[in-house]
């Protein structure tokens, strides 16, 4: 197990390095920068600004300086939010996104697992068809359709929730549902498939023959094997939650990292854009590693891979 983790960590290094290098040089090649938008800059101001952003040095030196900063967790000053460093902005905004993602994932797991397991207990009955029909529906609907529709329905027509903002506990409901809906659908499908496969195996029949109650059979014996595919889906799900948060935070005007990222893109805030991409790449790779570890822990057969 330890070897597995170490190998994966070692593998991560070159990938991250390539991502860092590629984004850095892309940013250097891209025209426009912090100085283009300053109207009527005098020569002195220009030079001061260039010094502040370290643009007056040769490009390799800038690159080395950037790498050094990265090793200390610094991402340099933002082009647009003056006086702020990108890492400070991320540190401010990320907790909001994390909170949203946790609610969404919790919603997706509870609703998805429940629907999937219920459907698998009586396949090809109404209890199977109805949740699965909703799941098919959910897989096809993108967040930028469900989000506004939910606002239209529950925010504007019924007036149950605020249509945007991130102030009260009730403001968490619609964004979490919007972000989680797709995963409810996916998890329900995977859980149903996995459970059906396990419930058909011999050891389940044995457990039943020995007189174990249905609840015990499902929860104690079938669940662990049946949910393996759900766990392996968590890796891609985390990537999806990140990209989904861009949309959801934009729709609901939530001050999270996703919205900052979109704004940085629209405002051409290169340092912010790049810093966030690096942060996301790192985050997702680490999360994937954690998911893989959970998977190996749940399914020891994978250890011999």
């Amino acid at each position, binding site marked *: 197990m330890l070897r597995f983790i170490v190998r994966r960590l070692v593998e991560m290094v070159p990938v991250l390095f390539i991502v860092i290098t590629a984004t850095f040089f892309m940013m250097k090649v891209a025209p426009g920068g912090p100085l283009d938008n300053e109207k009527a800059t005098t020569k002195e101001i220009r030079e001061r600004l260039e010094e502040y952003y370290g643009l007056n040095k040769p490009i390799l030196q800038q690159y080395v300086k950037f790498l050094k900063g990265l090793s200390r967790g610094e991402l340099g000053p933002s082009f647009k939010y003056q006086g702020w460093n990108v890492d400070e902005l991320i540190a401010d905004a990320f907790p909001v996104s994390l909170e949203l993602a946790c609610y969404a994932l919790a919603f997706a797991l509870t609703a998805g697992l429940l629907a999937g397991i219920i459907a698998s207990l009586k396949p090809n009955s109404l209890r199977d068809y109805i949740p699965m029909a909703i799941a098919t529906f959910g897989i096809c*609907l*993108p967040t930028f359709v469900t989000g506004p529709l939910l606002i*239209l329905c529950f925010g*504007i027509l019924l007036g149950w929730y605020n249509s945007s903002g991130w102030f009260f506990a009730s403001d968490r409901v619609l964004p979490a549902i919007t972000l989680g809906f797709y995963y409810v659908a996916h998890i329900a499908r995977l859980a149903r498939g996995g459970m059906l496969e396990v419930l058909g195996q011999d050891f389940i029949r044995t457990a039943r023959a020995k007189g174990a109650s249905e609840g015990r059979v499902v929860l104690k014996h079938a669940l662990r094997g049946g949910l393996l595919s759900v766990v392996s889906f968590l890796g*891609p799900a985390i990537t999806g939650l990140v990209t989904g948060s861009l949309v959801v935070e934009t729709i609901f005007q939530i001050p999270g990292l996703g919205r900052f*990222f979109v704004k940085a893109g629209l405002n051409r805030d290169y340092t912010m854009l790049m810093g966030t991409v690096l942060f996301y790449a790192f985050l997702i790779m680490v999360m994937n590693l954690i998911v893989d570890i959970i998977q190996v822990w749940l399914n020891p057969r994978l250890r011999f891979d």
Partner: protein
Amino acid sequence: MPQPPVNPSSAALESEMEGDHSLWRDAWRRLQKNNLAVLGLIFLSVLGLASLLAPWIAPNSYEAQNLALGATGPSFNHWLGTDALGRDLLSRILYGGRVSIAAGLCATAVSLTIGVLYGTISGFVGGRLDVVMMRLVDILYSLPFPIFVILLMVFTKDLGDAVENRLAEWLGVRMDIGKSWSLILLFLAIGAVEWLTMARIVRGQVMSLKKQEFVEAARALGLRRRRIIVRHMIPNVFGIVVVYATLIVPSVMLLEAFLSFLGFGVQPPMSSWGTLINDGASKMEEHWWLLVFPGIAFAATLFSLNFVGDGLRDAVDVRASKD
């Protein structure tokens, strides 16, 4: 369960005589029994045709404004209403469909090319190279590609603008290449990130094909690797590739709409379903139709594509079917 033919004796005879049990004919027969897939196919054909013919059949141009009219709800003159600038929503949805179809086709073609080549090489050569190539796919799977695409779109749009300005300085005339450039780039970028699953599937197919006799024979005849790959491998994985390509199309369209929704894709005044939904979402309090109709059009298209894709997969690749 085999479908009873209309006239059992003659049909059976015919099919036996002509060897008429081709993969595609069987698949088509199975597909026809899948109601959802057929319904999806019909919907897609109608919408696709209407979008393709939009310049001739759409009631208005996508950018024809009528400021005096402003935003009006569905009416006889404008079936789906108009937006704040008085532009006909139906026309804009149809023109947006053109962008989506173009995205679907171009990006899918790109991802097919990359995926098939990559998968074939990896599966055919095998050994160490295969291990490395597939590990690379695993790693790429774990990267947040939509985010990279946004980064790429921002940079290249600026780069394109700069090139255009430079050209305008030299030539004294402004050539409006920026828009088409960013559109082409959008399709390329989307295609370049959607090939991973295809590569895996093709690799699996090639691995199993490789062990078959006709490939052995081709080798024994002294054919070179490249010829075996091009003439024997790729044609044989074609069926499965086509099927999975239909499943790439909706994900490609989704990515295009996602980018356009956020403002990184198709730029105004052009319409795409992503920008229309974005526009509708910002105005839904007063003008619900601006959100609801593009949303329905997009969702229905995604449904249909998924149903057709799933149906086709179940029909062609019987082993992969879920039940």
